[in-house]
């Protein structure tokens, strides 16, 4: 169960990142025909980010304790002490930013340059922040792997 959650969490996060990137690119050339699509993908981005939050949050609250102990006892303790601590708290901000995206996209973007600017910045900030979350998750996974390998070797 927990391993499935651990796979789904970065998968939905990755899809949310792609959705934000889609919104960014589509907004660059927003027209009347693309308005509904931009709004729908913005909603999809927010939905996927909330799904990522619930999947990752459930795993973090219920299953992370054992991994945390392993990481902190291993050579890559920074995997928890820095990367997980930063990830779990920056994500809370990212969740709100993704929630805000459909609100910003609700304007008539095809005839409103100011509104397009707000959407471009919002989507443009979601993408690198999400990628940093994915990267942090990779570091945390490697920290667990290294700790387990050393433990298996009796180190």
């Amino acid at each position, binding site marked *: 169960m927990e391993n499935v959650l651990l796979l789904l969490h970065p998968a939905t996060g990755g899809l949310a990142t792609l959705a934000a990137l889609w919104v960014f690119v589509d907004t660059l050339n927003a027209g009347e025909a693309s308005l509904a699509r931009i709004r729908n993908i913005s909603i999809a981005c927010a939905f996927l980010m909330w799904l990522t939050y619930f999947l990752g949050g459930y795993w973090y609250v219920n299953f992370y304790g054992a991994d945390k102990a392993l990481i902190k006892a291993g050579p890559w303790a920074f995997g928890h002490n820095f990367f997980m601590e930063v990830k779990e708290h920056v994500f809370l901000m990212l969740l709100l930013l993704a*929630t805000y995206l459909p609100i910003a996209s609700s*304007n008539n973007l095809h005839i409103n340059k100011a*509104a397009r600017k707000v959407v471009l910045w919002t989507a443009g900030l979601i993408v690198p922040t999400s990628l940093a979350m994915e990267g942090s998750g990779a570091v945390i996974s490697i920290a667990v792997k290294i700790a387990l390998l050393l433990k298996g070797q009796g180190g």
Partner: protein
Amino acid sequence: MEHNEIGKYTRSFGLSFAITSVISALLVILKESNEETILAWMKVATGHHWVTHGLFNIILFSALGWALSRPNNGQGVKISANVLVICIASAVILSDLLIAGFYA
């Protein structure tokens, strides 16, 4: 014809995001620096400090977004798109720096 007026909820919730984001980063420092009091209370409140933190953020974001849409006879807070974008981007950068700097 091009318009340059952004919707009141875009303004109010954008500003709400910026404020909530920075307060959330400050709460990280506050709770981690006061493990026996604030962090302990946040753990007791929901069973996990992170869950309490998330709930606090969501409630603050929603309440501030609604409140900032009320001024000026319901027209919402007056702020240009440029200033709003600066607030949002600055809040993201400042929050990231505060959180990463604290744990570094």
